[in-house]
C-alpha cells in the first residue's frame, strides 16, 4: 500500500513537471508579451529593454524556467504581464467563485444523476423512467454552452426571472468572497449550476442505470428480496455498493471535464472565476497566468485522483494495492 502510494506520488510529480515544462516552452515561442500588452506608441527602445529586464525576459530560456520553477514551489507564480499584480493573488481572489460553482454543480449533478439512474432501473417501464432516460441523453448530447445560452434566453431575456450575469451580492469571510450567504448570490448561482451540472446528471444517470440493471439481476440481490428485506435495504445496502465502484471511477475522471466546462460556463455567465481569468489571459498572451492555471489545475486533478484511489479501497475490501 505504502509502495503503491509512493509510486503514484512520484508519477504525479513527473506529470506535473512535464506539464509545467511543456506549457512554459510552448508559450515561450508565442507572441512577444511586451508587444501584445503595451501600446506600441509608448514603446521606445529603452522602455522595451527596461520592461524585458523587469519581467526577466532577457535571460536564457533554461534560467527563466529554473527561476520560475523555484519560485512556483514557494507558491509564487510571478507577476501578471497585463495587470502587474502577483499571479497567485489574482488566482486566490478568483478561486472562491469557481469553487462554489463547481462544487455545487458536481454534488447536485451527481446526486440527481444517481437518483434518476436508480429510479429508472427500478421502474423500467414507467413513464417517468423513460423521461429520465431522455433527459440523460439530452444531458450528454447538448453542449454546455448551448444549455447556458438557452437558459438565459428563456429565464432572463423572455421571462425576466433570473439574473444572467455575474455573482450578485457577495459577502467577505476573511479572504473568501462567498455568494452563498445572500439571496442574490443564490439567484445568480441557479443557471450556472444547472449549466455545469446537466452533463454530470446525464453521465451519472446512464452509468447508474446500466450498473443497477446488471446488479439487480444477480443472485445475491434476488436472495436479499427473498429474505423479505425492504427495498431500501436491498437497493441501498446490497445493490448500490457494487454500482458505486464504476460510478466513483467516472467521478474521479470527471474533474477534468468539470474544470473544462467551468471555463465555458464562466464565459457565458461572465462569472468572475478562474475560467474567465484564464480566457482573458489567453487572449492577451498573459503567460504567467496561463502557466499557473495549468500547473495548479494539474495539481488539483492529480491529488483528487489519489483520493479516488483511496476511496476504492474503502468501498471494496477486495481491492488491495501491492
Amino acid at each position, binding site marked *: 500500500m505504502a509502495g503503491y502510494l509512493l509510486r503514484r506520488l512520484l508519477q504525479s510529480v513527473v506529470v506535473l513537471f512535464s506539464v509545467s515544462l511543456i506549457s512554459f516552452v510552448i508559450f515561450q515561442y*508565442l507572441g512577444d508579451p511586451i508587444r501584445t500588452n503595451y501600446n506600441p506608441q509608448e514603446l521606445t527602445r529603452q522602455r522595451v529593454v527596461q520592461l524585458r529586464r523587469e519581467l526577466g525576459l532577457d535571460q536564457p530560456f533554461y534560467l527563466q524556467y529554473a527561476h520560475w520553477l523555484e519560485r512556483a514551489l514557494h507558491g509564487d507564480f510571478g507577476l501578471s504581464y497585463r495587470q502587474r499584480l502577483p499571479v497567485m493573488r489574482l488566482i486566490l481572489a478568483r478561486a472562491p467563485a469557481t469553487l462554489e460553482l463547481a462544487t455545487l454543480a458536481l454534488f447536485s449533478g451527481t446526486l440527481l444523476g444517481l437518483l434518476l439512474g436508480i429510479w429508472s432501473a427500478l421502474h423500467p417501464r414507467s413513464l417517468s423512467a423513460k423521461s429520465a432516460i431522455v433527459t440523460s441523453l*439530452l444531458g450528454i448530447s447538448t453542449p454546455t454552452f448551448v444549455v447556458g*445560452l438557452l437558459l438565459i434566453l428563456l429565464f432572463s431575456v423572455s421571462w425576466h426571472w433570473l439574473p444572467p450575469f455575474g455573482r450578485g451580492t457577495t459577502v467577505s469571510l476573511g479572504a473568501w468572497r462567498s455568494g452563498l450567504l445572500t439571496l442574490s448570490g443564490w439567484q445568480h448561482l441557479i443557471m450556472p449550476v444547472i449549466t455545469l451540472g446537466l452533463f454530470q446528471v446525464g453521465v451519472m444517470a446512464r452509468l447508474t442505470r446500466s450498473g443497477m440493471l446488471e446488479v439487480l439481476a444477480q443472485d445475491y440481490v434476488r436472495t436479499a428480496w427473498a429474505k423479505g428485506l425492504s427495498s431500501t435495504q436491498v437497493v441501498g445496502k446490497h445493490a448500490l455498493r457494487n454500482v458505486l465502484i464504476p460510478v466513483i471511477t467516472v467521478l474521479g475522471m470527471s474533474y477534468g471535464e468539470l*474544470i473544462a466546462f467551468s471555463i465555458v460556463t464562466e464565459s457565458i455567465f461572465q462569472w468572475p472565476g478562474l475560467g474567465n481569468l484564464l480566457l482573458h489571459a489567453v487572449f492577451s498572451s498573459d503567460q504567467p497566468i496561463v502557466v499557473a492555471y495549468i500547473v495548479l489545475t494539474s495539481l488539483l486533478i492529480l491529488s483528487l485522483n489519489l483520493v479516488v484511489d483511496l476511496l476504492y479501497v474503502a468501498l471494496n475490501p477486495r481491492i488491495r494495492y501491492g
Partner: protein
Amino acid sequence: MAKSRQQGSEWWQSLSRSPLALISAILILLLGLAALFAPWLSPQNPYDLATLNLSDAFQPPLWLPGGHWPYLLGTDNLGRGILSTILYGLRISFVVGLSVVLLAGGMGIVTGLWAGYRGGWLDALLMRLADTVFSFSTTLMAILIMGLLKARGVGAVVFAIAITDWVRYARTARGSTLTLKPEEFVSAAQALGAGSWRILTRHILPNALPPLLVIAAVDFAVVVILEATLSFLGIGVPITQPSLGMMIAIGSKYLYAGYWWMIVFPCAVLILLTMAVNLLGDWLRTELDPH
C-alpha cells in the same frame, strides 16, 4: 463476401426493428448529405464576402413579418443567411469529426495493438499516458492547447483534439489484444510462422473491432461538441468561416436584441446531430455487445 453480406442484412433487420436508431441513422445521413452538397443547396455562399449585403443584416425568418427570400431562417449581423451558414457550418462539424475519428482512431489502434501484443516499456508508457489524459479529459486538454497555440482553423482544432484523443482508442485496442493474445487461433497463426504484423492485422484486429466501432461513434459526437465549444470560446475556427459554435457565439452577442433565430437554429441542428449520433452509438453498443 457472403458472410459480410449476410451480416449486413442482419444489421439492417435489427436497425429496422429499432425505430429510434433507424430515425437517427436517416437523420445523420440527411445532415451529412446536406453538408456535402452545401454549395448547391444553400441559397447563398456565406464565405464569399463579396456577395454579402450589410443592409440584409438581422432579417427575421421568412414566416415572420419582415422576412424575405432567400433568407429562409433569417440572417446574422453581416447579412449571412442563417440557413446557408448552418449548411456550411455542418461541413466543418463533419470534417472535424471525421478527421479526428480517423486520425486518432488510426493512431490509437496501431499503438494499442502493438503495445498489447508486445508489452514492455511501450505498454507501460502507454498506460501511464492514458491515465493522465483521462484524468485531464480531452476537452480540457484541447481548450488549453488551443489557448497556448495561436493558430486558428480546422487543422489546428483537429490537431488539438486528436493529439490526446487517440489514447481512448489505444487503451481499448490494447485491452482487446490482451484478451485475444492467449486464444488458440493466435497461437496457431504463430505456429504457422506468421509475422507479428500479419497476426495483428489479420487475426487480432478483426476481432477487436466491434468495441472500437462503438467508441468511434460516441467519440464523433464528443468531437463535434468539442469543436463547437472551442469555436464558441473564440479559440476554434476563424470568424470568416463560421462553424455552428461560432454562429452561436456571434448570436450570443445579440441575446437581448431579440434576434433569437441567430442562436436557436444552429443550436437545434447541433443538438439533433449529436443526439442522433449518441442514439446510434447506444444501438451499436447493444448490437455488438450482448453483455
